[in-house]
């Protein structure tokens, strides 16, 4: 049934490519994401050079040997951008997993139990939420130090309140639904009601928040690396390459920042298009209008 569902959706998106906005958006987003994921997974096999070694003359503009040119140390930019996708996706995924692992259970409890616990948790989460994201991530990253897991944690701290707020508000409204009262009348305990009746009804909105947060997480990760708080230098990373390349912008070496920058923009765009399109698909009211 699921495969039928998906194929119908994709087929529909094809047919309404120029008519239905949401179908087009989700489809284009999905294509971008698939391309990036494939290149990240296959990076060691498809990249022409080792991204951390000197493979040609420094500051070579893009040519047939080095499609994206080389940087100040003679490293192949194309290989670095390909490998950069690995780091970006890995950290973004890890950050989103950690953020949802914190935000979803707390949101469920807070919305379902309510009372003083809800007020305290909401206050704490709102306090975190009110910080500008990058500044909070910088502060946490500065404390934790560099490394993939540490960066993921510092990004997760920024995004956990988003999950918390979405889940909490949904749970608070689902709690008063008739099927929850019916479950109570059946004799179900609170835990069962929460897992079997409330959680499945909030998950669709989590999917949307999840893909939107992935986009944000990639930008935050690039921002941290740009500021030197990200991954240690020899590892290929878009944010680091950007900050490295901008030092030579006055020498007109545009390729060093253009390609990592484009990679970030396109990947973020892919996530945004996908989540926006999915949002409209998953929203039953929009679906019925078709």
């Amino acid at each position, binding site marked *: 049934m699921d495969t039928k569902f998906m194929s119908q959706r994709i087929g529909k998106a094809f047919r309404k490519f120029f008519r239905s906005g949401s179908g087009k958006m989700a489809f284009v987003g999905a294509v971008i994401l698939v391309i990036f994921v494939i290149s990240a997974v296959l990076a060691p096999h498809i990249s022409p050079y080792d991204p951390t070694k000197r493979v040609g003359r420094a500051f070579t503009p893009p040519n047939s040997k080095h499609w994206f040119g080389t940087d100040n140390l003679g490293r192949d930019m194309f290989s670095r951008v390909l490998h950069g996708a690995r780091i970006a996706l890995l950290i973004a995924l890890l950050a989103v997993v950690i953020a949802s692992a914190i935000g979803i259970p707390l949101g469920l409890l807070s919305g379902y139990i309510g009372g003083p616990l809800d007020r305290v948790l909401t206050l704490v989460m709102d306090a975190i939420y009110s910080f500008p994201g990058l500044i909070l991530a910088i502060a946490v990253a500065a404390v934790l130090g560099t490394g993939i897991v540490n960066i993921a944690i510092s990004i997760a701290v920024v995004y956990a309140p988003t999950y918390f707020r979405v889940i909490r508000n949904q749970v608070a409204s689902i709690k008063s639904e008739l099927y929850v*009262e019916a479950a109570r*009348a059946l004799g179900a305990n609170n835990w069962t009601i929460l897992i079997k009746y409330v959680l499945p*009804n909030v998950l669709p909105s989590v999917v949307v928040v999840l893909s939107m947060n992935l986009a944000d997480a990639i930008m935050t990760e690039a921002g941290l690396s740009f500021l030197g708080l990200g991954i240690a230098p020899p590892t290929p990373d878009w944010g680091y390459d950007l900050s490295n390349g901008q030092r030579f912008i006055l020498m007109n070496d545009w390729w060093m920042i253009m390609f990592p920058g484009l990679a970030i923009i396109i990947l973020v765009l892919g996530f945004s298009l996908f989540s926006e399109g999915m949002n409209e698909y998953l929203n039953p009211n929009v679906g019925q209008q078709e």
Partner: protein
Amino acid sequence: MKDSALVAVENLVKHFPVRMNFIQMLFTREKKKVHAVNGVSFKIEEGQTLGLVGESGSGKTTTGRLVLKLIEPTDGRIKFMGKDITPLKPKEMRPLRREMQIVFQDPLASLNPYMKIGEAVRHPLVIHKIGRNRIQQREMVLEMLEKVNLRPPEEFYNRYPRQISGGQRQRVVIARALITRPKFVVADEAVAMLDVSIRSQLLKLMVDLKKEFNLTYLFITHDLATTKYICDRIAVMYLGHIVEEGSFKDIYSEPAHPYTKALISAVPEPDPKIMKTKKKMIPSGEVPNAIEPPPGCPFHPRCPHKKAVCSRTFPEVVEISEGHKVACHIYARR
């Protein structure tokens, strides 16, 4: 002394606090309350059906929820199978829920949209640990689905609530309520949202199931006509009070309370000739606000037979014939 009644309710009261904003809080000393249920008493013998009739806002749905302790009563006592369940905590109520069930008005809203029908009906068995394993539970579910005329049951088992019709959904809800073989079922406007043709089918199903499982119903409705098929006794509610209670025949052919008379006169008659000659007496005005109910008899502002005493004291309940009780000053003993 053992009480023969399966369900007995004594002087049940439920007040809901009214939400006020900050400014209102500053200027009001006492908290405002909605007087949803104001001292309701009734008994239901095992195997009987009590119809609770009243217009919207009369507190009949609140009464149904109170009897099952889905909400806590402000005052009064609820006895189930001779046991006082009023002081029980929600946790202590859980095992008892196997014996008492509820069918709500809106079948779509009372089913989890992400739960397949078979799973929804099986869930009570999981909760109360009935049946040895999944396979046996599945068998029980299929049997139950067949009993509520969802055939073939295998086909319905794997569907989602949105994929079936309203009448079928209500059958699923009934199957879910009855799978633990309860003794007592509250039907809260259970057929009100369905088409007239499906309504009679479901009423017939409920009567059949009642015989088969020896059920006791509290049948809540605003529609006097549907009580004809299913109820042994009828209690008429008005603004949180039971104003008249009696056998189906008492209420229908010899209504005593002015409000009941008005209700009966409003039931449409299939024969247009009788309908034309039938004397209608629709009470003037609207149902008073339950936040500030009128003093004395709740019906007095609209009553055609109003006396001076009506606005001062609440009438005593008088038994005018065997089992036919009325709360009205007209019948008060002098």
